[in-house]
């Protein structure tokens, strides 16, 4: 009787696996045919010199050696990108969590507020960039107009925002915060899952809002915080569009990010081999950082009580 049950369970599991693979087959085929081939091709091209017209010529590791040892702009673009990631990821987390905490209330019209904060995520990035160019325009932009009393108070020159190499990176990061509503939605969803009984128990013990936030909300939100952290790092290292539209990588290459340089290597220098090598370097950097972050997973992320 027992062996009969075991074999039917095995049969069911097999059937379930087949159905699973069948459902996943479009994606599996897609990743194999449309994903794996270009990925492997780019790996090969990274070991070649290839102007995108003539046939690629194998040159071994030369592209990598040049990038690491004799390409000043490579390091400049790398620093710009690391700077962007280091500031924008923590700032994005804090902004997203803060918004979520503010909007996790049962007051009238809350859904309207939530929609308003999420709305920037559905605006075209080109339109967003142009809008912010107007706002941040140093001479007639609204932001400097609003800040003019502060400038007068401290007797300082108006900030040049994206027009100055010293403030351009921060300007683009601040602009990026406008879309923090995207992560806010994820945080809010997780907050809704936190059992009310925990808050009730805390209230019985006399906990205030800050104590409840620190000891209940934030620990239970760590899975979504961690998810947004990882996604933020990946997205941060790929930053490109906003600089391409707003600053053309300038001024003085201060917003010339890694992905921008990679794009120029391909499109303007016609050096596909070098661009592919850069793509693989970027992939490895992201892999290392993500692996390191995942190792922290068990230590910093609350994954539920062990049974």
């Amino acid at each position, binding site marked *: 009787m027992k062996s009969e049950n075991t074999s039917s369970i095995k049969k069911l599991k097999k059937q379930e696996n087949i159905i699973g693979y069948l459902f996943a087959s479009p994606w599996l085929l897609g990743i194999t045919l449309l994903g794996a081939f270009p990925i492997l091709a780019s790996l090969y091209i990274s070991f070649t*010199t290839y*102007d*995108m*017209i*003539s046939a690629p010529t194998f*040159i071994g590791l*030369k*592209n990598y050696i*040049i990038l690491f040892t*004799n*390409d*000043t*702009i490579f390091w400049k673009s790398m620093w710009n990108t690391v700077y962007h990631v280091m500031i924008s990821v923590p700032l994005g987390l804090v902004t997203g969590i803060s918004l979520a905490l503010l909007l996790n209330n049962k007051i009238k019209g809350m859904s309207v507020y939530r929609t308003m904060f999420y709305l920037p995520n559905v605006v075209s990035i080109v339109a967003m960039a142009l809008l912010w*160019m*107007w706002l941040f*325009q*140093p*001479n*007639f932009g609204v932001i400097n107009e609003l800040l003019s009393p502060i400038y007068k108070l401290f007797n300082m020159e108006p900030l*040049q925002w994206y*027009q100055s*190499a010293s403030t351009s990176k921060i300007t683009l990061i601040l602009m990026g915060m406008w879309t923090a509503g995207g992560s806010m939605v994820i945080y809010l969803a997780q907050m809704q899952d936190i059992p009310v009984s925990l808050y009730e128990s805390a209230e019985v013990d006399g906990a205030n809002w800050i104590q409840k936030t620190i000891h209940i909300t934030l620990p239970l939100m760590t899975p979504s915080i961690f998810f947004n952290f990882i996604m933020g790092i990946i997205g941060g290292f790929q930053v490109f569009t906003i600089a391409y539209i707003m600053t*053309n*990588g*300038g*001024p*003085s*290459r201060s917003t*010339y990010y890694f992905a921008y340089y990679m794009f*120029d290597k391909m*499109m*303007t*220098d*016609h050096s*596909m*081999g070098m661009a592919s090598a850069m793509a693989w370097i970027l992939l490895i950097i992201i892999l290392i950082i993500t692996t390191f972050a995942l190792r922290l997973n068990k230590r910093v992320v609350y994954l539920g009580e062990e049974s």
Partner: protein
Amino acid sequence: MKKLLLFLVVSMVAVGLLGCDKDTTSDKTEIIFWHMSPVGSESYSGMKTIIADFNDSQDLYYVKGVGFSFWDYWDKLSVAIASRTAPNIGLSTIDDVVSRASSGALYDLSTLMDADTSGVNTIDLNEFRQSQMDFATYEGDLYAMPFTATTRALYYNLDMFEELGLTEADVPTTWSELKTIAKMFDVVENGEIKRLGFDPTYGDATYHGWLWEAGLDFFDDNLDPTLNTQGHIDVMNWILDFNDDLTRAQLTAFGEENTLLGLNPFASERVAMIIGNDGLYQTIINSGATFNYDVAMIPIPDENGVHVNWGSGFSIEMYNNGNDTDAEVQGTYEFLKYLLSSDVQLELAEVNGWIMSHISAMDIYVENKPIMQKLLVEVDYARDKVYVPYAPSWHGNDWQPYYTQILNGELTPAEGLAAARANYLEKQENYNSVN
């Protein structure tokens, strides 16, 4: 219900299939032509008519035109050439034809011309400037033909001149005259520029353009970067000192106001003089401006100045994707000849407002257009920039960051030029080590 649904689906499929049937073109060889007159552009209908006229005259070939905006065109073409999905024929930049020809991406037009005995629209090479055709020549053969003949000139606002009691005789011809006259037009109110006489960084003015006028260049004959002479520094200082009574922040703000408002500073009468190409003539017409203006040669240095301007014309070329049939190649060549014929070049000039490459056709085109006549004279002084394999964008991405730093005062001219030169040398070394 099911029957009704089935009937509807079958009917829609049938109507769709009927709609797809092009009985006039199905037996013709299709030629794809990429141009810069996308749907919605002012030149779209004109370009469509030109293509339709060719199609009406053909029994064997059918040209399908695909228009992209100028800004989208280049990336799309680069990717298409790389992936061997380029159109049969399209426009490109004439200064780097050699790079495409040497890689086998283009058909040898000389061979096609030699084999052409049809007598229809035969290309008369005497109708095209040798200086342009030299750029389209690789190993003695033509791999492209000049399509447009872009030129740059000094546009000046005659009404503003008259307002200050100046006449056409006062139009500057040298750098020192330019500065003296320009300063008369400046209007600054509360620290904000309301009107500017001239700025050597506005419009189509470029550092390499000014260098050429001073008999200098970015590269020597071996394509090694120069930029390290006192002459280069002097030209840069002239640019920096031109509006030294104004701050760079004021000039940048003034320029950005125009950009953000989508205004051409000359067409909107915010500058008295500007360097512009022949396209500015059309821009002024399109903007509905009513002021009087004229064009002249770009002022040259007071001593040993060279009358020259940056051309940057388009080429027309046939792309070799490696799988084209003989009929496609022949049909494309017939269309190329058609586009380069006198009548069509005239039509193209009317449609786009460009100065085309056909010399006689342009003589006719400018007959009743005094400003265009002067621009056409400047075409003979136009020069294209050299193609540098290790830095194809030497005048753009590679140069602009240093130029901006110098203009903003972050680097002195000597420091900025030295840094730019070091970058070119690094690129040259890296390129040579893998090619």
